[in-house]
């Protein structure tokens, strides 16, 4: 049930009508009142004219996942009115635009329906079609403010910040806010029981999407070359990088750019550019999604074998094939782990929220250069494009980026000879040289068979020496990748294990299960290959509920392959309909398994 500072508002509108900024205003106002809040987009693969929803979860407990309730539905789109009404949780409210009569047949006894004539009020008050449409959105923000007791001064403050350069917009937007607000105050018993009350839980927090956070991470990682081909849901990552670079990457002396963003003709080319730039010593990256990974696979295998750093962001969407481009999933885990033909395997990082998107961006470049191999950061649409409340990012001014084993001109001058693929240090990682450094550093980079000395080979032993050494490097990688997040609540023999965006829902589920006296331990993996701590965690438990967002239990497969985990103790809880995971699903599935006789 909804309660004070625990309420879910879902707003149904038409995409392309400017509702995103109104929804952002509402979400920010609640955040500014010190109350934890998250926002989720449910949008069509379309530019303008189709239904879209935004869900604001006010969560005093600071949960990150989608809720399984809709306490207040704002049904602004007549096209989806019937469906929107059925989505309201019993005991909830539905707000609709009463300018036009609604079909009485679509009534529900167990919810309260509030009609507010948004269109009529805005048509009477504002001129111009575009303005009227935009202001109608702002008016519903005003109505919600009244229903939930949101401080109008906070809304005004936000509008003043947004329209600092367009003062007249502040007044007109506040007029629209008051149209909705005043009507609600006069006609509805405001505030509703699940209202908001000021808290002090957001002062060290931000609300940000994962793609923006990754882009900011790329800036702090010192990336200078970004090559990409636009694809939903990764596009906003490069958009973010471009806008940060426009501000922070202009050489003060010449006014020229210290970065290159290249929109490639396709993903085949984007990854080729990344390899060329990384080979030359720049930090280079490409953001993409599943279909892009399929196209890049040939070069990913090349980079693995020729040992070239590369950072690839895969903001996963619903597959297979084109799938549902604007829905989320974690269904590229196996495809990325083993991308390309031949014996290949790749380092994967799994951020579970935008905070980790920021930190893992920096880590990804360090690992790629340290280990001279592609590193893929696997977020998903839920993390990448939704608004998460996370702690403020920090940057340690003393941080030294790990540029890996790169020989300088002085190093080469002193050396007798340089051999590209020789394991000098015994950690499986050879030394590399950058073009343009020194004539002694030259070598021929190739995807064909090569010896430890870097020469072409078709010799059995020489070939095998190099691919075996790559396995040594893989074991070194295992000790370099981020550790899992492990929590023992009450030590027992069962646990939940998840990955990436499953973290929020699973942590909330652990709380709920705990209240029902089902105590489970917890592990959220952060990287592949899995470290010793993941192996150890699996060994310690008799039953592990692996929660992941794909049909085929890909994380489970990877655990079995990489950790020698016993298949029969891993129980898969799979959620793969494209909607972000919620705690209710996890709780229900765990309880079902327990009732079937699985130990808890």
């Amino acid at each position, binding site marked *: 049930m909804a309660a004070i500072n625990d309420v879910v508002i879902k707003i149904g509108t038409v995409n392309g009508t400017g509702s995103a900024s109104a929804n952002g205003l509402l979400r920010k106002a609640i*955040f500014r009142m010190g109350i934890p809040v998250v926002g989720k987009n449910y949008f069509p693969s379309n530019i303008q004219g189709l239904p879209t929803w935004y869900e604001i979860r006010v969560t005093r407990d600071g949960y990150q996942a989608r809720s399984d309730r809709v306490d207040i539905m704002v049904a602004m789109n007549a096209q989806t009115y019937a469906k929107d009404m059925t989505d309201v949780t019993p005991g909830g409210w539905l707000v609709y635009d009463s300018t036009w009569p609604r079909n009485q047949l679509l009534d529900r006894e167990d919810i309260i329906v509030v009609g507010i004539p948004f269109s009529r009020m805005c048509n009477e008050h504002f001129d111009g079609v575009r303005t009227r449409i935009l202001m109608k959105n702002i008016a519903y923000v005003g109505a919600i403010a009244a229903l939930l007791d949101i401080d109008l001064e906070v809304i005004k403050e936000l509008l003043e910040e947004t329209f600092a350069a367009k003062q007249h917009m502040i007044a007109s937007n506040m007029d629209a806010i008051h149209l909705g607000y005043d009507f609600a105050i006069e006609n509805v018993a405001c505030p509703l029981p699940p209202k908001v009350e000021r808290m002090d839980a957001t002062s060290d927090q931000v609300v940000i999407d994962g793609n923006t956070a990754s882009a900011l991470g790329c800036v702090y990682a*010192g990336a200078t070359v970004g090559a990409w081909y636009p694809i939903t849901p990764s596009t906003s990552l490069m958009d973010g990088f471009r806008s940060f670079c426009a501000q922070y990457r202009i050489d003060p002396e010449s006014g020229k750019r210290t970065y290159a963003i290249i929109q490639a003709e396709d993903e085949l080319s984007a990854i080729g550019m990344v390899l060329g730039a990384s*080979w030359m010593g720049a930090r280079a990256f490409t953001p993409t999604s599943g279909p892009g990974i399929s196209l890049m696979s040939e070069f990913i295998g090349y980079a693995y074998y020729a040992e070239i750093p590369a950072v690839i962001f895969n903001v996963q969407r619903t597959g297979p094939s084109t799938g549902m481009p604007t829905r989320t999933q974690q269904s590229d885990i196996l495809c990325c782990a083993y991308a390309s033909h031949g014996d290949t395997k790749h380092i994967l990082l799994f951020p579970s929220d935008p905070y980790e998107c920021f930190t893992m961006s920096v880590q990804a470049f360090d690992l790629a250069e340290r280990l001279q191999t592609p590193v893929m950061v696997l977020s998903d649409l839920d993390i990448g494009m939704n608004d998460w409340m996370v702690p403020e990012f920090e940057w340690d001014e003393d941080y030294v980026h790990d540029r890996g084993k790169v020989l300088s001109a002085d190093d080469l001058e002193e050396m007798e000879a340089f051999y590209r693929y020789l394991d000098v240090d015994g950690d499986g990682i050879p030394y590399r040289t950058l073009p343009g450094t020194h004539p002694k550093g030259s070598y021929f*980079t190739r995807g064909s068979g090569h010896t430890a000395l870097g020469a072409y080979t078709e010799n059995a032993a020489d070939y095998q020496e190099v691919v075996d050494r790559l396995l040594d490097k893989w074991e070194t990688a295992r000790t370099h990748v981020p550790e899992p997040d492990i929590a023992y609540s009450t030590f027992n023999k069962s646990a939940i294990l998840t990955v990436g965006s499953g973290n929020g829902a699973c942590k909330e589920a652990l709380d709920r299960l705990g209240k029902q006296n089902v105590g489970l331990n917890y592990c959220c993996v952060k990287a592949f290959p899995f470290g010793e701590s993941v192996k150890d965690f699996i060994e310690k438990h008799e039953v592990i509920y692996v929660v992941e967002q794909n049909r085929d239990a890909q994380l489970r497969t990877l655990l079995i392959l990489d950790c020698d985990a016993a298949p029969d103790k891993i129980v898969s809880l799979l959620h793969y309909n494209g909607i972000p995971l919620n705690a209710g699903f996890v709780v229900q599935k765990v309880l079902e398994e327990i009732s079937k006789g699985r130990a808890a």
Partner: protein
Amino acid sequence: MTYIKKPGIVHPSLPKNKLGLTSRDYEGAVSTLCAGCGHDSVTAAIVQAVFELDIEPHMLAKMSGIGCSSKTPAYFVQQSHGFNSVHGRMPSVTTGANAANRNLKYIGVSGDGDSLSIGAGQFVHAIRRNINMCYILENNGVYGLTKGQFSASADIGSKPKKGLPNQQEPIDPVSTALSLGATYIARSFSGDKAQLVPLIKGALVHDGFSLVDIISPCVTFNDHDGSTKSYAHTRQKDHHVVDIDYIAPAGEITTAYDEGSAMPVELHDGSKIMLHKVDSTYDPTSRAIAFKYLRDRFNAGEITTGLLYLNDSRKEMHDLMGNIDMPLADLPMQSLRPAKGELEKILKRYR
């Protein structure tokens, strides 16, 4: 095999360039291509061109894709980094490398299979971006490594060793590049080193994308009677238009050409290439004329060689983007992150 070392004996009488290096210093591993392969002649011409331009070996990057042509960067300038990439993707790797370091000279070696089929998209877009590189297309109309299938540049009526003649329209890289606005377009013949070396030198010095399409007969699969890319056919049908001689800014090589028919064109770096008009009506700065000329000669069954088009006014990729002169790869990490305190300011937007 490429790991066989050439003997390291250098005759004292070999001429040296400004760096004190001989042409032997610009050689690579022993070629593994078939004896008599046109590509080996191109390799020799590249060695000569790079030697004569006094390019420091480590300041050259050798890029390629897959195929017979793409193996050749192993056979020249041993002391340069080479990147033998995947099929048809040399342009993208070169684009990225060049984006990271604009100070190096880039020579990409490709073939008709690599550039005109799987790599057609990348070839086209490298031209559009005007990447500062010398793109050598060793064109023999046939797939050698897979034993003699037609490539997309095979002429209608070309006969394979076995099977039926080609019936599909060929893709002509020169006309393609011309239509896309490439800024330096040349064609030559692997057996004509006198023409080829200056064309490659001009291409290396040109500030932007330069294509050198080189008819390079395949002795094993496409040098028989009936082939339109055989030695015999090419020698018979070759039609020189414009020969050039590269002139360094210092102006050392100035003679040996008839000045009355010479047309000097100043390049970006201040150096000049001298255009020799075999046909005095030909103007290599006009795309319209180039198109017509190529078509007329093609209809007459002739292969036009020489410098066919030159445009030195268009900016190369970095200048189009407004990039700093220094290589991006050389920028110190501290200079690449926002100043202290900026992160807090950025995060304010998300509060």
